[in-house]
């Protein structure tokens, strides 16, 4: 199952935690992070994705970044998370167009074996639908869309991501949880903004996408997974790999 992660990345702590969770599940082979796109026309946002990919040993991939619209500013959370990180995304051309990227990536999945999680504004999703060659791909490959702002004519089942999804949960991440990494973005962000607002909906959405809509999300589960260190990757290595 491949998951496309789309967010206004870097604006809210929820998203940072959600991606940590998603990548953790990826390292346990429960899913694959298929693509990461941001609706913020902000290089730091794209760069932060790259940090995650390297940190969790994910497959190197291009990052989708929207180049217009809202969200240009770097909030304090984002600034903290990227501080001191080595990022190779230096300009717009180091990123990809989100709609083409998502379409390309979806084509590598079997029918019904991909899902999209979008926690922020639905601009990238709308662009995706607007791309003529993408519509049939979305229809056949995407099992479900979890979105906060789904476009009206989305062709597959949609689950709306709302703040209520996180209701009843009290999981509070601590910077020390992420100490297994030298400069984990969440740890850096928490250090700067220990009281950042959390509604946990994004993390719940991640678990529902990967483990099924009926999966019961509890604080214990979040505690166990969100900050956990990723399992080492097993891959066939060839010479010069």
């Amino acid at each position, binding site marked *: 199952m491949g998951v496309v992660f789309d967010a206004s990345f870097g604006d809210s702590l929820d998203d940072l935690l959600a991606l940590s969770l998603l990548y953790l599940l990826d390292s346990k082979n429960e899913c694959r992070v298929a693509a990461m796109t941001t609706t913020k026309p902000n290089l730091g946002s794209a760069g932060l994705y790259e940090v995650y990919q390297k940190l969790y040993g994910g497959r190197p991939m*291009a*990052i989708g970044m929207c180049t217009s619209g809202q969200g240009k500013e770097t909030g304090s959370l984002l600034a903290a998370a990227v501080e001191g990180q080595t990022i190779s995304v230096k300009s*717009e*051309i*180091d*990123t*990809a*167009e989100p*709609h*083409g*990227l998502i*379409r*390309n990536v979806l*084509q*590598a*999945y*079997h029918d019904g074996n991909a899902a999209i999680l979008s926690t922020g504004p639905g601009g990238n999703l709308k662009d995706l639908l607007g*791309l*003529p*060659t993408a519509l049939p791909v979305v229809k056949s490959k995407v099992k479900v869309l979890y979105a906060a702002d789904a476009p009206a004519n989305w062709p597959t089942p949609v689950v709306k991501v709302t703040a209520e999804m996180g209701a009843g949960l009290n999981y509070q991440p601590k910077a020390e949880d992420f100490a297994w990494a030298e400069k984990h973005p969440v740890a850096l962000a928490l250090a700067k903004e220990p009281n950042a607002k959390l509604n946990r909906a994004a993390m719940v959405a991640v678990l529902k996408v990967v483990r099924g809509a009926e999966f019961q999300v509890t604080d214990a589960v979040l505690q166990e997974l969100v900050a956990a260190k990723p399992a080492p990757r097993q891959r066939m290595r060839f*010479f*010069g790999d």
Partner: protein
Amino acid sequence: MMTRKALSRRTMLRGAGAAIALPAMDAMAPALRASQLPGPKPVRMAFVYVPNGIDMRNWTPAADGPLTAELPRILKPLEPFKKDITILSNLTHNGGRALLDGAGDHGRCCGGYLSGVQPRKTFVDIKAGISMDQIVANQIGSKTRFASLELGLEDARQAGDCDSGYSCAYTNNLAWRSETQPLPPILDPRVLFERLFGTGAELSPEARAQRAKYRRSILDFVMGDTRKLEADLGPTDRRKLDEYLSSIRSIEQQLERAEKDNSIINPGMDKPYGVPADFAEHFKLMTNMITVAFQADLSRVVTFLVTHEGTSRPYREIGIADGHHPLTHHMNKPELIEKVTQINTYHAQQFAGWVEKLKAAKEGDSNVLENSMIVYGAGLSDGNRHTHEDLPTLIAGNGGGYIKSGRRITARRETPMSNLFLTMMDRMGVQVDHFGDATGRLAGLDLA
């Protein structure tokens, strides 16, 4: 400048790629006919494709923007022309990737290079997509004697399969007339010569007109016969005969065009004898003829599959005895990478020779190069890892004052190469909304 060669009655042979001078002909029009006409010159388009990827470390210029610094090693042969070339980075063909079909990157990257779609993984019921040069040829081909020309230098393998489940049709052809009909390249310079400039035993204009009349009659006759036949056939059989019919129609169109413009072109070179053993000689012969063909406006759309995708051709001409394809799986051994780079540079050298000829071919107050868009590229970037992004691509020429050349343009990552094709099609006068997997036009090419 083109010179008129004296044609002698005696025939002489010279060295490799030897030529036969034609017996004297009567009605020969100078080759420069089209070039001397006033008015805007037609835009020509060509694709030169090299296989098995390119050593990107020695291809990609260090910086974006104007090519002021010295060009990297593989591009060095083009140094004298660097104001006329544009290097493009980050163009991608997603259709070349495995997606769901496993191994077969060579079949896919070549079969889908000009069509922007992933070819079907099969030996028999081949399906790629119509290639963009044919879309252009369909639109503007009626203006020239030949709607398009397809060339190559390497003959196809005669037996066995070609790439992990993909039919040889994908790696042996660059241009596709329809999703099931590839256009095989001409390999023999003699054949190309005869096609463009006529066969040796030339006829008088009356005789030629008579022959054309007979041919049209014959074609009408067989078309009628075929239609009668088709009525009782199953769908697949009918498709085969449709290919036949459409090929006949295209010859009819050629005949019509040839009639309107009845002159024979004097190419200013002797007819090649056959296929030269030497790679550089072969390359030169073929491209020289295309230069003349452009000047005489015999065609405006050319695809050139230099050697097959996945070829194992050794390059003894430069002292490399190992096959090209095995070398590109170099295990990161420096000696092997070095050989690959040498092959890449050798190819670029031949290409630079052609660019030089195109630039020297004057047209009005510019030259053929300025009025053309010659794309030189490969279907893979890293031949070892079979990557399909950041495909090495450069355009020589300005497309008739449209491209601001002399720089490197880096697109966003994963930008489909089909975006470039859409832009080029615009320039060739073909308006399409979508092509292949394009997400829009390629920005930044113009701004002249």
